[in-house]
């Protein structure tokens, strides 16, 4: 039998005016005979005559129990070990960071359109921009994009628009999902994407072959550092010099935590930096919300940037420092079809988390974190090299927290699934499209992993590769 479209009766915690007496008073003031009359401007042939086919509403205790039990069935830390990376990585989130982002003053507010009552969010975002500039070695950072991949897509678009050129080069060792997103973002543009070869021994881009391809019609080059295989790219200073000589822009994608001990892109000629801010105090959340980083070196480029920017100013009638959104004429709500991007809602709360995270660790803590991560990852790579039937690390290039492991006579996808069945998530199969000529999986080791965790991984991997 078809359910009728009937209003809810009784009380509901989310609907304070659900009370016939209140409704009648409101209708009286409006001068309407019924709530239904307020919808009489909807032509009757498109009115929904039946009720929506959805479950009945339930009390929060019921909904909470159901969802918590379904989520508890997921195999995740702390009940499983996670050694997966690829653009989202397991890191520890200090309790104080969680406490700050769970303050409703931050999370139930919106875009700071009224700066006088939004100084808290504005200042937090301004501090995020400042701290990120220091970490990246850049001059201007926006207050967030959706994620790394979409930031990379926007960067490719921006490089083409700023230079007026139609060729954009991508390193062959960038993350495959980033590659797909960049493709989709530039698909409506007249922009040709070209992939650069990498060296299957080092796992890094082969820049020697690159020089001849950088000509004066290249809008830019996108390189990830560390790249998808976790390998740090060498030779970027030469690349940027060559590129700048020809008037192109260098776009670098980063894991911000690597910059605790690795030279920041601003120091080797990056014009635009994008990246994933998730390791800075943001949960993995099965893919989001995360934090897209977008920064530029030259302040003149700031006017062509996508996304929201916060600036420091003062009160109108005094020198009292204050913050507000700036350069809004780039944005869609003012410039409409002429805007630098259509982005409106962004990931502000995640930017607050990141700025709080950077403040919590500070100069000393962040450096120490980088040292712990690189120690753990190198210990793990070495430990896995003692497992029969695997080559670890597969590539010879230097790495930060991720490394590829090659398998003999076993399919990577089977190792990945067998590991998961043993409560160890890791060894994400490296796509055959990379043409490594062998089966391999990607592992990520960070500060959350202990000696015992790595031992458990080694044992599980040994069992998983056994034929």
């Amino acid at each position, binding site marked *: 039998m078809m359910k009728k*479209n009937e209003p809810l009766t009784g009380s*509901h915690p*989310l609907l304070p005016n659900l009370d016939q007496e209140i409704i009648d*008073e*409101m*209708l009286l003031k409006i001068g309407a005979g019924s*709530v239904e009359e307020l*919808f009489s*401007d909807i*032509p009757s042939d*498109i009115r929904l005559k039946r*009720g929506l086919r*959805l479950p009945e509403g339930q009390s929060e205790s019921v909904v909470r129990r159901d969802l918590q039990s*379904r989520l508890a069935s997921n195999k995740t*830390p702390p009940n499983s070990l996670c050694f*997966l990376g690829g653009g989202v990585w397991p890191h520890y989130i200090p309790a104080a960071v969680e406490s*700050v982002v769970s*303050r*409703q003053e*931050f*999370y139930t507010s919106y*875009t700071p359109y009224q*700066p006088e009552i*939004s*100084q*808290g*969010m504005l*200042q937090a975002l*301004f501090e995020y921009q400042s701290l990120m500039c220091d970490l990246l070695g850049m001059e201007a950072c926006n207050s967030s994009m959706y994620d790394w991949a979409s930031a990379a897509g926007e960067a490719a*678009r921006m490089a083409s628009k700023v230079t007026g050129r139609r060729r954009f080069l991508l390193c062959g060792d960038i993350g495959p999902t980033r590659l797909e997103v960049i493709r*989709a973002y530039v698909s409506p543009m007249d922009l040709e994407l070209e992939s650069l070869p990498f060296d299957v021994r080092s796992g890094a881009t082969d820049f020697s072959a690159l020089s001849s391809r950088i000509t004066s019609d290249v809008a830019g080059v996108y390189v990830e550092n560390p790249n998808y295989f976790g390998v740090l790219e060498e030779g970027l*200073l030469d690349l940027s010099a060559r590129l700048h000589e020809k008037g192109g822009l260098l776009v670098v994608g980063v894991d911000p935590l690597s910059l605790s*001990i690795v030279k920041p892109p601003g120091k080797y000629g990056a014009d635009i930096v994008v990246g994933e801010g998730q390791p800075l105090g943001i949960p993995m*959340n*099965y893919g*989001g*919300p*995360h934090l897209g980083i977008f920064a530029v070196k030259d302040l003149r480029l700031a006017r062509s940037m996508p996304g*929201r920017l*916060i600036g420091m100013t003062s009160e109108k009638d005094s020198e009292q420092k*204050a913050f507000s959104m700036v*350069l809004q004429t780039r944005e869609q*709500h003012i*410039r409409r*079809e002429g*805007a630098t991007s*259509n982005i409106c*809602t962004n990931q*502000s709360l*995640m930017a607050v988390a990141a700025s*709080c995270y950077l*403040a*919590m*660790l500070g100069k*000393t*803590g962040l450096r*120490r974190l*980088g040292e712990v991560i690189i120690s*753990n990852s190198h210990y793990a790579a070495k430990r896995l090299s003692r497992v029969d039937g695997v080559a670890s690390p597969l590539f010879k290039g*230097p790495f930060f927290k991720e490394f590829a492991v090659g398998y003999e006579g076993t399919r990577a996808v089977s190792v990945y699934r067998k590991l998961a069945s043993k409560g160890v998530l890791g060894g994400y199969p490296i796509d055959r499209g990379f043409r490594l000529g062998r089966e391999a999986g990607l592992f990520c080791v960070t500060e959350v992993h202990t000696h015992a965790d790595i031992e458990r991984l080694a044992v599980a991997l040994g069992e998983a590769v056994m034929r």
Partner: protein
Amino acid sequence: MSRKGRVGYIPPLDPKIKKSVGPPSSYIPRELRREDDGGGDALNLPELSELQVLRHYNRLSQMNFSVELGMYPLGSCTMKYNPKVSEMIASSDGMRHAHPLQPEETVQGLLSVLHELGEMLSEITGMHRFSLSTAAGAQGEFAGVLMIRKYLRDHGLSEKDEILVPDSAHGTNPASAAMGGFKVVKVPSGESGLVSAKVVKELASESTAGMMFTVPNTLGLFEGEVVEVSKAVHDAGGLMYYDGANMNALLGKTRPGDMGFDIVHLNLHKTFATPHGGGGPGAGPVGVTERLAEYLPVPVVSKGKSGYYLDYDLKQTVGRLKGFVGNSAVLLRAYAYIRLLGADGLASVSSLAVLAANYLWSLLDSEAYPVTHGKGMRRKHETVVSVRSGLPGGAMQSAKALLDYGVHAPTVYFPLIVSEALMIEPTESEPVEFLDEYASALNRISRELKEGRLGNVPRNTSVGRVDEVKASHPSTLKVRW
């Protein structure tokens, strides 16, 4: 306050690992190292204790207005209450620690939620299928525009290069159309504030790829000729895109699919009560009718013989717009919200949201706050009034004055077709008593404005009127400390 060596958190190094590894710097070639020798490379982050950091952010939070502090009727943003239980659920380990690349068989619980959510959104909008991957409304729009583009090309219609957008539309619509490589053709609203099918028919041509349409529109008016408008665009061979920013008015009342739309995005942070996070995150899932189902951005969550999985096998997909899956933790909250309300509850949300908007409007002094369009028509989820103070900047003055009453201002100066606009969306969350107070504050402000007694507002905020002009220089985008 920063002091050398001070930290809020220090990560541990396992002593057993420390014993068997070399110095960390030995793993990085010299030219790639970030040296810590005080040179140009060195990090310059502040060095603070945990308590210092907390005091700083807690103080900042006290300088920030939010839904849980007071009424926040920002038009077009649907600042409704965000149920606490959704936050509790989203803080589960099974959500926070789930990695997007872990095998699907290890994350069935969450995938079942996402799959059900997609089906629920299809039912609510009258669409055939949803992709949950897009991160915000604007990204949903970009996905929609890319689908229009690809669909037309696949049907040999690549010469269609214009998208119709009403002059009352959100700025994201023309911006998304332009990002998708289309020319934007502005559709003028009539005096009523509505788009007429006749005008659309005149503008539609063989170049028309589609139309982006917001219903109810940004004036809060239901577009009564939407069916005829859809038909006119379809007759010209174009596709209809529904901007779901204002869906809070229509849950269970009518559905975009029944109005003739082909593509829909929903802003889950608006209609489905996920928190706005000071500007984000949101989620902007995009749904389509059957003929466009294979064009959706990937992945979509499908159900197969051995369970739920991330489906990349869509033959005509416009591709991937986000690195991983979607804003899953936002999607989970929206699902919880739908479960809390159910079918009847959602219909009541729209009833009460529309009731609140019309009620608040009825309390306003109609000479001080007249409507410029659609006189005599009922409003849906929001009301746009024009501030008639006889003074330029009346809307801005009124908005700033409101801040002193412990409430947030409406959206100002939007939509662009209304001069001195205040766009008020109270939502169904707001108890009637607060609607009364808000209206009486606005009425008092208009009297003070007219009589020149308003003075320098705001007075009670953490800072006085902010100089936004002075801020608009790129050199103020970061600070040295």
